[in-house]
Protein backbone atom coordinates (compact mmCIF):
# COMPACT_ATOMS: atom_id res chain seq x y z
CA UNK A 1 0.00 0.00 0.00
CA UNK A 2 2.75 2.46 1.01
CA UNK A 3 4.81 1.39 -1.97
CA UNK A 4 1.84 1.89 -4.32
CA UNK A 5 1.18 5.33 -2.93
CA UNK A 6 4.84 6.36 -3.09
CA UNK A 7 4.98 5.40 -6.76
CA UNK A 8 1.66 7.16 -7.45
CA UNK A 9 3.03 10.31 -5.81
CA UNK A 10 6.21 10.10 -7.85
CA UNK A 11 4.26 9.71 -11.10
CA UNK A 12 1.35 11.95 -10.06
CA UNK A 13 -1.04 9.28 -11.27
CA UNK A 14 -3.62 7.07 -9.56
CA UNK A 15 -2.97 3.61 -8.18
CA UNK A 16 -5.37 0.79 -7.34
CA UNK A 17 -6.06 -1.50 -4.42
CA UNK A 18 -7.73 -4.83 -5.13
CA UNK A 19 -9.64 -6.20 -2.15
CA UNK A 20 -10.19 -9.92 -2.02
CA UNK A 21 -10.83 -12.72 0.43
CA UNK A 22 -7.84 -14.07 2.32
CA UNK A 23 -7.81 -17.14 0.05
CA UNK A 24 -8.20 -15.31 -3.24
CA UNK A 25 -5.49 -12.80 -2.41
CA UNK A 26 -2.97 -15.66 -2.32
CA UNK A 27 -3.28 -16.42 -6.02
CA UNK A 28 -4.87 -13.57 -7.89
CA UNK A 29 -2.25 -11.96 -10.12
CA UNK A 30 0.30 -14.65 -9.30
CA UNK A 31 2.19 -16.91 -11.66
CA UNK A 32 1.10 -20.27 -13.07
CA UNK A 33 3.02 -22.24 -10.43
CA UNK A 34 1.20 -20.50 -7.59
CA UNK A 35 -2.13 -21.06 -9.32
CA UNK A 36 -1.37 -24.74 -9.87
CA UNK A 37 -0.42 -25.21 -6.22
CA UNK A 38 -3.56 -23.46 -5.05
CA UNK A 39 -5.79 -25.52 -7.33
CA UNK A 40 -4.13 -28.74 -6.19
CA UNK A 41 -4.78 -27.82 -2.58
CA UNK A 42 -8.37 -26.75 -3.22
CA UNK A 43 -9.97 -29.65 -5.07
CA UNK A 44 -8.92 -28.25 -8.44
CA UNK A 45 -11.10 -25.20 -8.10
CA UNK A 46 -10.13 -21.61 -8.69
CA UNK A 47 -11.90 -18.29 -8.18
CA UNK A 48 -13.04 -16.84 -11.53
CA UNK A 49 -11.25 -13.59 -10.71
CA UNK A 50 -7.94 -15.36 -11.41
CA UNK A 51 -8.97 -15.09 -15.06
CA UNK A 52 -11.05 -11.91 -14.93
CA UNK A 53 -8.75 -9.60 -12.99
CA UNK A 54 -5.84 -9.50 -15.49
CA UNK A 55 -8.27 -8.25 -18.14
CA UNK A 56 -9.63 -5.61 -15.79
CA UNK A 57 -6.13 -4.50 -14.77
CA UNK A 58 -5.11 -4.22 -18.39
CA UNK A 59 -8.00 -1.81 -18.98
CA UNK A 60 -7.07 0.29 -15.95
CA UNK A 61 -3.42 0.39 -17.01
CA UNK A 62 -4.50 1.92 -20.30
CA UNK A 63 -6.41 4.56 -18.31
CA UNK A 64 -3.16 5.59 -16.58
CA UNK A 65 -3.44 3.67 -13.32
CA UNK A 66 0.22 3.07 -12.54
CA UNK A 67 0.36 0.57 -9.72
CA UNK A 68 -1.78 -2.27 -8.39
CA UNK A 69 -1.67 -3.62 -4.88
CA UNK A 70 -3.82 -6.33 -3.38
CA UNK A 71 -5.19 -6.43 0.13
CA UNK A 72 -6.93 -9.21 1.98
CA UNK A 73 -10.36 -8.28 3.27
CA UNK A 74 -9.52 -9.44 6.78
CA UNK A 75 -9.15 -8.20 10.35
CA UNK A 76 -5.61 -7.04 9.78
CA UNK A 77 -6.74 -4.67 7.04
CA UNK A 78 -9.96 -3.57 8.77
CA UNK A 79 -8.98 0.12 8.75
CA UNK A 80 -8.00 0.05 5.10
CA UNK A 81 -11.22 -1.74 4.12
CA UNK A 82 -13.28 0.74 6.13
CA UNK A 83 -11.42 3.75 4.74
CA UNK A 84 -12.10 2.81 1.12
CA UNK A 85 -15.35 0.89 1.52
CA UNK A 86 -13.63 -2.14 0.01
CA UNK A 87 -15.38 -5.48 -0.31
CA UNK A 88 -14.32 -8.79 -1.82
CA UNK A 89 -13.48 -8.56 -5.53
CA UNK A 90 -13.54 -4.78 -5.69
CA UNK A 91 -10.92 -2.51 -7.18
CA UNK A 92 -10.52 0.88 -5.56
CA UNK A 93 -8.83 3.60 -7.58
CA UNK A 94 -6.86 5.90 -5.31
CA UNK A 95 -5.34 9.32 -5.96
CA UNK A 96 -1.68 9.89 -5.05
CA UNK A 97 -2.81 11.74 -1.90
CA UNK A 98 -4.64 8.61 -0.74
CA UNK A 99 -8.17 9.83 -1.45
CA UNK A 100 -10.61 7.50 -3.18
CA UNK A 101 -11.41 8.24 -6.83
CA UNK A 102 -13.80 5.36 -7.41
CA UNK A 103 -14.64 1.77 -6.56
CA UNK A 104 -15.49 -0.95 -9.08
CA UNK A 105 -16.75 -4.49 -8.65
CA UNK A 106 -14.79 -6.94 -10.78
CA UNK A 107 -17.53 -9.55 -10.84
CA UNK A 108 -20.46 -7.23 -11.41
CA UNK A 109 -21.38 -8.25 -14.94
CA UNK A 110 -20.41 -6.27 -17.98
CA UNK A 111 -16.71 -5.39 -18.23
CA UNK A 112 -17.34 -2.86 -20.98
CA UNK A 113 -19.81 -0.79 -19.00
CA UNK A 114 -17.55 -0.90 -15.93
CA UNK A 115 -14.62 0.28 -18.04
CA UNK A 116 -16.69 3.10 -19.53
CA UNK A 117 -17.72 4.34 -16.07
CA UNK A 118 -14.16 4.02 -14.78
CA UNK A 119 -12.80 6.01 -17.74
CA UNK A 120 -15.24 8.84 -17.05
CA UNK A 121 -14.45 8.81 -13.33
CA UNK A 122 -10.67 8.84 -13.81
CA UNK A 123 -10.91 11.45 -16.53
CA UNK A 124 -12.95 13.70 -14.22
CA UNK A 125 -10.29 13.33 -11.52
CA UNK A 126 -7.52 14.04 -14.02
CA UNK A 127 -9.24 17.21 -15.22
CA UNK A 128 -9.16 18.52 -11.68
CA UNK A 129 -5.38 18.09 -11.46
CA UNK A 130 -2.96 20.88 -12.39
CA UNK A 131 -1.51 20.32 -15.89
CA UNK A 132 1.97 18.76 -16.03
CA UNK A 133 4.41 19.22 -18.91
CA UNK A 134 4.88 15.85 -20.68
CA UNK A 135 8.29 14.26 -20.29
CA UNK A 136 10.09 12.59 -23.18
CA UNK A 137 12.38 9.69 -22.33
Amino acid sequence: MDEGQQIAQLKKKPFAIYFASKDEVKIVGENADAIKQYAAANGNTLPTTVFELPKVIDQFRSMGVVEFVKAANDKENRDLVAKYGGANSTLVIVAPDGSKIGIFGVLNGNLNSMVAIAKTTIEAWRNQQPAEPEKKP
Partner: protein
Amino acid sequence: MERSLVRIVWVAVIAVLASVTARDARAACGDKITVDGVSIIIPAVVTWDADVAEAIQVAKIKKKPFAIYFVSKENSKIVGESLDAIKAFMKANNNTVPACLADVPVAVEQTREMGVGNYVKVPLRKENRELAEQYGGSENMMVICAPTGEKLAAFACTTEAMKNLDAVRKEIGAWQAKNPQPVASGK
Protein backbone atom coordinates in the same frame (compact mmCIF):
# COMPACT_ATOMS: atom_id res chain seq x y z
CA MET B 1 -20.98 -36.91 -11.74
CA GLU B 2 -21.35 -33.15 -12.05
CA ARG B 3 -18.51 -32.65 -9.57
CA SER B 4 -16.26 -34.95 -11.61
CA LEU B 5 -17.05 -32.96 -14.70
CA VAL B 6 -16.12 -29.69 -12.99
CA ARG B 7 -12.93 -31.34 -11.80
CA ILE B 8 -12.05 -32.46 -15.32
CA VAL B 9 -12.65 -28.96 -16.62
CA TRP B 10 -10.37 -27.49 -13.98
CA VAL B 11 -7.71 -30.08 -14.68
CA ALA B 12 -7.85 -28.98 -18.30
CA VAL B 13 -7.52 -25.35 -17.26
CA ILE B 14 -4.55 -26.19 -15.08
CA ALA B 15 -2.96 -28.15 -17.91
CA VAL B 16 -3.17 -25.04 -20.06
CA LEU B 17 -1.79 -22.88 -17.27
CA ALA B 18 1.05 -25.31 -16.74
CA SER B 19 2.30 -24.56 -20.17
CA VAL B 20 2.07 -20.84 -19.73
CA THR B 21 4.08 -19.49 -22.55
CA ALA B 22 4.29 -16.12 -24.00
CA ARG B 23 1.22 -16.79 -26.06
CA ASP B 24 -0.90 -17.86 -23.09
CA ALA B 25 0.11 -14.85 -21.07
CA ARG B 26 -0.90 -12.57 -23.90
CA ALA B 27 -4.20 -14.28 -24.54
CA ALA B 28 -5.10 -13.93 -20.88
CA CYS B 29 -5.43 -10.23 -21.26
CA GLY B 30 -6.43 -9.91 -24.89
CA ASP B 31 -9.22 -10.68 -27.26
CA LYS B 32 -8.96 -11.28 -30.95
CA ILE B 33 -10.23 -8.31 -32.90
CA THR B 34 -10.38 -7.34 -36.55
CA VAL B 35 -9.21 -3.92 -37.67
CA ASP B 36 -10.02 -3.16 -41.29
CA GLY B 37 -10.03 -6.85 -42.14
CA VAL B 38 -6.82 -7.65 -40.26
CA SER B 39 -7.12 -9.85 -37.17
CA ILE B 40 -4.93 -9.13 -34.17
CA ILE B 41 -4.93 -10.25 -30.58
CA ILE B 42 -4.90 -7.23 -28.34
CA PRO B 43 -1.60 -7.29 -26.43
CA ALA B 44 -1.35 -6.36 -22.76
CA VAL B 45 -0.81 -2.72 -21.90
CA VAL B 46 2.49 -2.02 -20.14
CA THR B 47 2.90 0.70 -17.53
CA TRP B 48 6.03 2.47 -18.72
CA ASP B 49 7.96 4.83 -16.50
CA ALA B 50 8.50 8.28 -17.95
CA ASP B 51 12.28 7.98 -18.23
CA VAL B 52 15.25 6.08 -16.84
CA ALA B 53 15.61 8.49 -13.91
CA GLU B 54 12.02 7.78 -12.89
CA ALA B 55 12.53 4.05 -13.42
CA ILE B 56 15.50 4.12 -11.04
CA GLN B 57 13.41 5.94 -8.43
CA VAL B 58 10.57 3.40 -8.75
CA ALA B 59 13.04 0.50 -8.60
CA LYS B 60 14.52 1.92 -5.41
CA ILE B 61 11.03 2.12 -3.87
CA LYS B 62 10.27 -1.46 -4.93
CA LYS B 63 13.79 -2.72 -4.18
CA LYS B 64 13.60 -4.75 -7.37
CA PRO B 65 15.42 -4.70 -10.71
CA PHE B 66 13.91 -2.68 -13.55
CA ALA B 67 14.07 -3.07 -17.32
CA ILE B 68 14.88 -0.69 -20.13
CA TYR B 69 13.33 -1.55 -23.48
CA PHE B 70 15.15 -0.01 -26.46
CA VAL B 71 12.97 0.43 -29.51
CA SER B 72 12.79 2.39 -32.75
CA LYS B 73 11.10 5.77 -32.62
CA GLU B 74 8.26 4.49 -34.80
CA ASN B 75 7.57 1.26 -32.89
CA SER B 76 7.77 3.04 -29.56
CA LYS B 77 4.42 4.65 -30.40
CA ILE B 78 2.57 1.36 -29.97
CA VAL B 79 4.58 -1.17 -27.97
CA GLY B 80 2.79 -1.70 -24.67
CA GLU B 81 0.30 1.03 -25.50
CA SER B 82 -3.48 1.01 -25.64
CA LEU B 83 -5.65 -0.30 -28.45
CA ASP B 84 -6.37 3.25 -29.62
CA ALA B 85 -2.66 3.82 -30.29
CA ILE B 86 -2.41 0.48 -32.10
CA LYS B 87 -5.39 1.27 -34.31
CA ALA B 88 -3.96 4.68 -35.22
CA PHE B 89 -0.61 3.04 -36.07
CA MET B 90 -2.27 0.40 -38.24
CA LYS B 91 -4.20 3.06 -40.11
CA ALA B 92 -0.98 4.93 -40.87
CA ASN B 93 1.00 1.79 -41.74
CA ASN B 94 -1.10 -0.11 -44.22
CA ASN B 95 -2.69 -2.25 -41.48
CA THR B 96 0.60 -3.78 -40.39
CA VAL B 97 2.10 -4.08 -36.95
CA PRO B 98 5.65 -5.06 -35.95
CA ALA B 99 6.24 -8.44 -34.27
CA CYS B 100 7.52 -6.69 -31.16
CA LEU B 101 3.97 -5.48 -30.47
CA ALA B 102 3.11 -8.98 -29.33
CA ASP B 103 6.56 -10.05 -28.12
CA VAL B 104 7.29 -7.24 -25.68
CA PRO B 105 4.26 -7.76 -23.38
CA VAL B 106 5.34 -11.39 -23.24
CA ALA B 107 8.88 -10.36 -22.28
CA VAL B 108 7.39 -8.09 -19.62
CA GLU B 109 5.25 -10.93 -18.28
CA GLN B 110 8.19 -13.34 -18.17
CA THR B 111 10.61 -10.92 -16.53
CA ARG B 112 7.95 -9.77 -14.06
CA GLU B 113 7.72 -13.39 -12.94
CA MET B 114 11.50 -13.34 -12.43
CA GLY B 115 11.16 -10.32 -10.14
CA VAL B 116 11.53 -7.28 -12.39
CA GLY B 117 9.38 -4.53 -10.90
CA ASN B 118 9.08 -1.76 -13.48
CA TYR B 119 9.76 -0.89 -17.10
CA VAL B 120 10.87 2.06 -19.15
CA LYS B 121 10.78 2.40 -22.92
CA VAL B 122 13.60 4.28 -24.62
CA PRO B 123 13.13 5.27 -28.26
CA LEU B 124 16.36 5.09 -30.24
CA ARG B 125 16.78 8.70 -31.23
CA LYS B 126 19.67 11.14 -31.03
CA GLU B 127 18.91 12.33 -27.52
CA ASN B 128 19.09 8.76 -26.21
CA ARG B 129 22.28 7.75 -28.02
CA GLU B 130 24.43 8.00 -24.89
CA LEU B 131 21.96 5.95 -22.92
CA ALA B 132 21.91 3.27 -25.61
CA GLU B 133 25.71 3.19 -25.65
CA GLN B 134 25.90 3.03 -21.86
CA TYR B 135 23.68 -0.05 -21.75
CA GLY B 136 24.63 -1.57 -25.09
CA GLY B 137 21.01 -1.10 -26.10
CA SER B 138 19.84 -1.70 -29.64
CA GLU B 139 16.53 -2.07 -31.46
CA ASN B 140 14.09 -4.41 -29.69
CA MET B 141 16.42 -5.17 -26.80
CA MET B 142 15.47 -5.39 -23.15
CA VAL B 143 18.15 -4.58 -20.59
CA ILE B 144 17.63 -5.62 -16.98
CA CYS B 145 19.17 -3.30 -14.40
CA ALA B 146 19.63 -3.16 -10.64
CA PRO B 147 17.95 -0.23 -8.83
CA THR B 148 21.35 1.47 -8.88
CA GLY B 149 21.21 1.52 -12.68
CA GLU B 150 23.87 -1.19 -13.06
CA LYS B 151 23.23 -3.52 -16.01
CA LEU B 152 22.50 -7.13 -15.02
CA ALA B 153 21.42 -8.82 -18.25
CA ALA B 154 20.02 -8.20 -21.71
CA PHE B 155 18.09 -10.06 -24.38
CA ALA B 156 16.38 -9.51 -27.70
CA CYS B 157 12.57 -9.43 -27.47
CA THR B 158 11.99 -12.01 -30.17
CA THR B 159 9.94 -15.18 -29.90
CA GLU B 160 13.06 -17.23 -30.58
CA ALA B 161 15.26 -15.52 -27.98
CA MET B 162 12.53 -15.70 -25.35
CA LYS B 163 12.28 -19.47 -25.59
CA ASN B 164 15.24 -19.64 -23.25
CA LEU B 165 15.79 -16.84 -20.78
CA ASP B 166 17.71 -18.98 -18.30
CA ALA B 167 20.76 -16.73 -18.43
CA VAL B 168 18.61 -13.70 -17.61
CA ARG B 169 16.88 -15.58 -14.79
CA LYS B 170 20.28 -16.59 -13.42
CA GLU B 171 21.59 -13.00 -13.38
CA ILE B 172 18.44 -11.69 -11.69
CA GLY B 173 18.58 -14.57 -9.21
CA ALA B 174 22.21 -13.76 -8.39
CA TRP B 175 21.30 -10.13 -7.76
CA GLN B 176 18.33 -11.18 -5.59
CA ALA B 177 20.58 -13.49 -3.57
CA LYS B 178 22.83 -10.54 -2.77
CA ASN B 179 19.86 -8.26 -2.10
CA PRO B 180 17.30 -10.36 -0.23
CA GLN B 181 13.72 -9.13 -0.25
CA PRO B 182 11.34 -9.25 2.69
CA VAL B 183 8.82 -12.05 2.06
CA ALA B 184 5.57 -10.61 0.66
CA SER B 185 2.59 -11.24 2.92
CA GLY B 186 0.04 -11.14 0.12
CA LYS B 187 -1.34 -7.88 1.44
